[in-house]
């Protein structure tokens, strides 16, 4: 962020978001779930959708970093560390969302002290905890020597780097070699782990036979593909718009290569989404079809047609295939951004419509409660808290980006 004006604008937005989030947090803590709009039928709402959104971004970003660390695809080396850092921030944002969603936030530790391993949710928690620890270690080993190097800098950057070096002083090439070996091992363990935990998030929904629209063997795979698309889009957008070496031939060529990767993933996502929708619609089982019809023709049709299909498929498809745009940094970055925005809609459409179909006909009318409804729009508290969490993620990202050795160029130095 060389441009001072842009930087000010970014921080102004972040601070406003954090302030809004503080209000949401205050409501959540003092009043509680009463202020939420999810109800007795649609028991999960915006927060669960945002949770799977960010966890998808995290898994996707991580798997892209693994291309370098585990599979040795040197082409993407300049973005690997950035991707790893992004994965860490996105995971934090995901966990915050799901934590606020709990009825008893103070009891979250029970998933560690008394896990029920027949539950996909318990598996998911244990897997992403392992993943989190792995991310921290992998990031540390990857940046250790840079922390030592940066430790000599003055001010906050130096202090933070000295702190994060954890007393390590070894700058020898041998120790760097050892670090890279550790990173390779961790990255390789991370690949099945990321596949398991994000596939696991898909399975969390897939195993629910009570909700026919979720109960599909495609779900874990669909989640993986969408994680890759959204994570790939995010990394492409970040790299295209804020890399310090913007304007160089090297940057342009890497952005357009990232664009090719994302294009492939978008195509894969289209196949998966089409398979999921077409099979369900053909089968005509009401519990399966009703949510899909609601997605496509309900009051929020635009989330699907303009968001999911338009911004998530058509726009990137055009921008990444047209000769004039596919090698242009701005347009490729925009394609990535378009996907990142679209996937909020994808996640909302996964969580909410399948829950809006009553388990038994007439159940909604039988329960005289405004919470027993097939309609759901997030409440002010839900929006505010989510905005705050996104603001926090943006703040942490920007701080890390300027204070820690995560900039794409540091790797090349």
């Amino acid at each position, binding site marked *: 962020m060389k441009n001072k004006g842009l930087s000010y604008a970014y921080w102004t937005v972040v601070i406003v978001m954090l302030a809004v989030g503080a209000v949401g947090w205050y409501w959540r803590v003092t009043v*509680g*779930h*009463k202020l*939420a709009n999810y*109800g*007795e*039928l649609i*028991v*999960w709402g915006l927060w669960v959708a945002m949770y799977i959104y960010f966890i998808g971004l995290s898994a996707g970003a991580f798997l892209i970093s693994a291309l370098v660390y585990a599979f040795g695809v040197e082409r993407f080396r300049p973005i690997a560390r950035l991707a790893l850092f992004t994965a860490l921030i996105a995971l934090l944002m995901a966990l915050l969302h799901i934590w606020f*969603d*709990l*009825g*008893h936030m103070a*009891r*979250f530790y*029970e*998933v560690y002290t*008394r*896990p*029920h391993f*027949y*539950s*996909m*949710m*318990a598996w998911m*928690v244990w897997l992403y905890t392992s993943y989190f620890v792995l991310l921290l270690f992998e990031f540390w080993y990857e940046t250790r020597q840079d922390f030592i190097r940066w430790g000599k800098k003055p001010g906050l950057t130096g202090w933070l780097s000295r702190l994060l070096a954890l007393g390590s002083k070894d700058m020898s090439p041998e120790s760097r070699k050892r670090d890279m070996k550790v990173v390779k091992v961790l990255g390789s363990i991370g690949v099945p782990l990321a596949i398991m935990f994000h596939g696991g998030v898909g399975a*969390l929904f897939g*195993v*629910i*036979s*009570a*909700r026919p629209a979720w109960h599909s063997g495609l779900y874990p795979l669909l989640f993986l593909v969408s994680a890759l698309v959204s994570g790939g889009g995010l990394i492409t957008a970040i790299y295209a718009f804020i890399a310090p070496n913007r304007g160089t031939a090297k940057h342009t060529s890497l952005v357009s290569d990232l664009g090719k990767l994302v294009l492939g993933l978008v195509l894969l996502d289209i196949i998966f989404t089409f398979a999921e929708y077409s099979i369900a619609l053909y089968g005509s089982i009401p519990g399966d079809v009703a949510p899909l019809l609601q997605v496509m023709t309900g009051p929020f049709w635009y989330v699907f047609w303009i968001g999911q299909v338009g911004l998530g498929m058509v726009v990137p498809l055009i921008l990444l295939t047209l000769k004039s745009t596919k090698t242009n940094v701005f347009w490729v970055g925009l394609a990535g951004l378009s996907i990142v925005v679209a996937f909020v809609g994808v996640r909302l459409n996964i969580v909410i419509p399948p*829950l809006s179909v*009553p*388990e*038994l*006909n*007439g*159940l909604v*009318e*039988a*329960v005289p*409660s405004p*919470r*027993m409804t097939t309609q759901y729009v997030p409440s002010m508290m839900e929006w505010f808290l989510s905005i705050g969490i996104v603001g926090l993620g943006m703040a942490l990202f920007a701080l890390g980006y300027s204070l820690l050795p995560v900039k794409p160029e540091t790797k090349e130095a």
Partner: protein
Amino acid sequence: MPVVVQQMENAIVRMMDDLERALKKPPSERRWGMVIDLTKCVACDACTVSCKAENKTPPGVNYTVVIKEEVGTYPNVRSTYLPRPCMHCENPPCVDVCPVSATWKNEEGIVVIDYDVCIGCRYCVTACPYGARTFDFGEFYTEGTPMIAPYETAPTFEYGEERTRTKDESPVGNVRKCNFCIQRLHEGLLPACINDCIGRARYFGDLNDPDSLVSELLRERYAFKLKDELGTDPKVFYLS
């Protein structure tokens, strides 16, 4: 048929005898079950109300409801009524998904929740194919009036534990469900909805006891279970 009709007259007495007999057995040898005669239900919602009174459930939280539907087109119409408590499935999908083992099928066959363990993630609510689980959002019926009515803040004795609902103490923030009035059963009383059914459409007892009224009804009459194809094996049966 004649045998059953004759016993209807003192069904409550009969069921309480069944209950007494069952309570003398070790808990693991009992299998509580409910039988609901749809031909006798008039959709008066006495069960819904008595359940509310017994468990002091807040707005939105309903352990048992009566689903009313109209079938046919005018003038050839008919109403159907389907009381729906928790099915206390033999293979409860809600229990499988709980990440912290806060809910389980106890040895008597009742699907119970430990309010002090439940983290309120609501995964079980999504997993129940019958909509039998509800989340306690912490609301009160008389909220916004000069005073929260005393009946809303009176203690409940679910699971034999005395609890008063406050802002964020359990059971607020927990998932809640029908537990066959386990607190009453252990005192030798029938579930509230059984006692208060004005048409004597609901029966309760030990399915393991061949002499219990519920066992006899299931032998004599045609019974079906809701969504049996899901493999949940409900312990609530419907007569039609």
